[in-house]
């Protein structure tokens, strides 16, 4: 499956439908049943970040998810309308001590662990693009 693109406004109401859609696409692409929720958790974490941090939760700003499957892997791009700056991006490792009890800062960590391959970068136009690659067995 190539060329799938899903553009969504930065509204939390779309997350639940999206979660099911991602699992359905994953299943169609050959992701194993018991890995589907890990896939959808990873993607949803990154989409939420795009909505919140990239788009400032502005419903007029979009997050665009591109899905392409290749031999033995699926690639997701999660693009938002912001421009991600590496210096503003903590949360890639679990906090220690007091920080462990933060109510936030676990999204990227979880996505990186479940998906194993998550990279932050920019689209050709300089907007934030997160790339997630999911291997197929």
């Amino acid at each position, binding site marked *: 499956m190539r060329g799938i693109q899903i553009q969504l406004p930065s509204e*939390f*109401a779309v*997350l*639940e439908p999206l*979660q099911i859609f991602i699992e359905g696409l994953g299943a169609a692409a050959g992701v194993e049943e018991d890995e589907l*929720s*890990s896939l*959808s*958790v990873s993607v*949803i*974490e990154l989409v*939420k970040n795009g909505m919140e941090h990239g788009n400032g939760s502005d419903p007029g700003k979009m997050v665009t998810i591109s899905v392409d499957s290749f031999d033995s892997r699926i690639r997701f791009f999660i693009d938002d309308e912001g421009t991600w700056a590496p210096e503003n991006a903590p949360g890639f490792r*679990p*906090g220690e001590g007091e920080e*462990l*009890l*933060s*109510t*936030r800062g*676990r*999204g990227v*960590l*979880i996505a990186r*662990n*479940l998906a194993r391959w998550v990279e932050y970068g920019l689209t050709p136009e300089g907007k934030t693009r997160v790339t997630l690659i999911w291997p197929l067995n």
Partner: protein
Amino acid sequence: MKIHEKMKDGVLIISLSGKVIGGPDLMNVKTAFQNAVNQDIDSVLLDLGKVSWMDSSGLGIIVSGHTTLSRAGGALKILNATKKINELLIITKLSTIFETFSDETEALASFGE
């Protein structure tokens, strides 16, 4: 997501079911913890056995419940974390903070210790 609450042996058991996903729904869980403290209940057992899907927003809410109860001198413990939720607790090292149980009687008894 649905929330169900019941008292048992002086412990408030809050059971979540369905999908715990980002959004306004989560405020209801936060409120449930706050209500407990307001009613001088300091032992809360969070039953996650019927949660079909959860992400970092769910973890955030659980941590905030932990903080709310600890400040009031109480404790939040977890019952029936699914395999997937356990994985999240381990990834985020929250497993070092939370006592988790797979048996309700044992969990309830632990509050008395």
